[in-house]
């Protein structure tokens, strides 16, 4: 357990170093590349100074780290906003879409996977395998387009994919930056309904894409658990099939939770594209825009924020697994 905790600062160091390296890999003069062809000498010089390119490498590197340690991620080249403020502003929306997607993906994926694992090598398993294989091969942005075509264009079940609220809705006063929570705090039930309705397509997109992976890992782990000696003994003792499945789930639980951490990392990337497609205005969309703008401080902030976020999720899920497994739990104490 202690070893896991030691990994964290090391990993964080790598994340920060990596975000720094992003500037270094830019070919030619980064300042020139960022400022663009139309910039004059003075503008380029300002950017160069911002990046610290006028100082020696080691000094730059150390300063970069001390700034970040103090929570100073600099200002955006593009619109002059303070990067750390922007991150806290956009992060909650990303958390909302990711939590909702994970919830539904888990529900759908784990049920499908459990079904396949329980009936392994029989008809439900074959069907599930085909569904999983097919779903895994569809890029998420294509899922989004297909959902838009069917659910919005053809059947009109969902509103147009433009933003989290319609033009006629008013945004609630910002309290937490979590739109759902702010709407509830403001008591704006119409707004809540509106945003829930508008969440259907983006959440469904990410949920479907992620569900395939949940199903895959659940199928494999539960399938293996079903042919384990443990399940055999449970059956030999006359336990009901419901209990037997429960035993198999207990056995598969750890690996599935661990795998969820990997899915979260993938989800952060996928969410950038989906947020952009649906104008979700979360951290993913903001970060993607920063990358396209070559807005170096914002990119670095984005990389550090997402990197640390997934790192924390890894650790948290690791702790959950350890807490749930008596074998690890006892080792520690």
């Amino acid at each position, binding site marked *: 357990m202690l070893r896991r905790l030691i*990994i964290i600062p090391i990993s964080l160091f790598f994340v920060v170093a990596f975000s720094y390296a992003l500037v270094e890999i*830019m070919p030619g003069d980064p300042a020139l590349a960022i400022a663009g062809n139309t910039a004059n000498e003075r503008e380029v010089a300002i950017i160069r100074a911002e990046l610290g390119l006028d100082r020696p490498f080691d000094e730059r590197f150390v300063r970069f780290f001390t700034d970040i340690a103090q929570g100073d991620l600099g200002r955006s080249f593009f619109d002059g906003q303070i990067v750390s403020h922007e991150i806290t502003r956009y992060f909650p929306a990303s958390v909302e879409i990711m939590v909702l997607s994970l919830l539904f993906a888990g529900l759908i994926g784990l049920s499908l996977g459990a079904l396949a694992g329980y009936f392994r090598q029989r008809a439900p398993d074959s069907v599930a395998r085909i569904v999983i294989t097919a779903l895994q091969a569809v*890029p998420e*942005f294509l899922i989004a387009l297909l959902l838009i*075509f069917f659910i919005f264009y053809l059947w009109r079940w969902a509103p147009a994919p433009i933003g989290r609220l319609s033009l006629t809705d008013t945004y609630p006063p910002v309290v937490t930056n979590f739109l759902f929570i702010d709407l509830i705090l403001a008591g704006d039930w119409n707004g809540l309904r509106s945003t829930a309705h508008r969440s259907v397509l983006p959440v469904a997109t990410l949920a479907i894409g992620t569900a395939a992976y949940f199903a895959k890992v659940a199928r494999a782990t539960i399938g293996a658990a079903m042919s384990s000696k443990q399940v055999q003994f449970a059956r030999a003792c006359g336990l009901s099939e419901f209990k037997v499945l429960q035993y198999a789930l207990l056995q598969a639980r750890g690996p599935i939770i661990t795998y969820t951490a990997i899915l979260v990392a993938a989800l952060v990337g996928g969410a950038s594209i989906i947020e952009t497609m649906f104008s979700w205005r979360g951290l993913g969309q903001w970060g993607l825009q920063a990358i396209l703008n070559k807005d170096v401080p914002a990119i670095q902030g984005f990389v550090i924020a997402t990197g640390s976020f997934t790192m924390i999720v890894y650790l948290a899920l690791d702790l959950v697994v350890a807490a749930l497994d008596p074998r690890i739990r006892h080792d520690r104490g």
Partner: protein
Amino acid sequence: MTAAESSPGTLRAHFGLWFGLTVITAMLVAAVFAPLPYDPIKPNADAVLQAPSAAYWMGTDSIGFDVFSRVIEAARRDLPLAFGGAIISAVIGVPLGLATTLKGRASEIIMRGLDAFQAFPLLVLAIAIVTLTGNRLEMVIFAIVLIETPRMMRLIRSEGLAIRESRFIEAAEAMGARPRRILFVHLLPNVTGIILAQTSIAAANSLTVVAALSFLGIGVSPPDPSWGVMIQAGARLMTSGQWWVSLFPGVAVFLAVMSLNLIADDLDVIFERTSR
């Protein structure tokens, strides 16, 4: 259970492998040899947003490009990028992975570092690298290698360690074979199947990354087609019902990715058995 009575090695036993190989081969052949009915980079202003028909098999887009011609043309661009990235990852990752199976603290530390790397949103990484290194889609190979090499290393390491435990490596060690000889003469042949499978998966992942990047317009130079660019061209049209512009390139990505995954799945099954 009818498949059951069949003997091993039949078409049915490895349906995924044969299906995948057929589709991928067909795509490569089409990419290299297929004559294109229309110029893929010259739009026809008189044929805008035509639905699929005998003249335009997959319809035309809002500029007047023939979707079919561009789907094929895009394969010439996307498939080599994906395969190239995957193969380079294997070439780099396999020896490194084998090396980490040697005992020692260094390999342990390297693997820990790679574990941390896995925690990263890799698609974001690829986007950042391509954008910052001059915005050319070819740079995606660099990103792919960065993403897929550690995966290859991890797999080779775990497989290699498992095989090391087995008797014949122990015997070779006991007889005084040198470490490098053990790696390449004894371990490598036993992980070939796994390498092929993982390379296939890497190619599938790469194809998705290439599609995602070009979908976002990163690293593309119009009017050159790429499946992702084409899907993007039809994205807005999905809200107005012209489904064919996005769907056909989307199906191309889907088929290619699924085929590569199916090949990998069956290779895993086949080789796991013989290596045991």
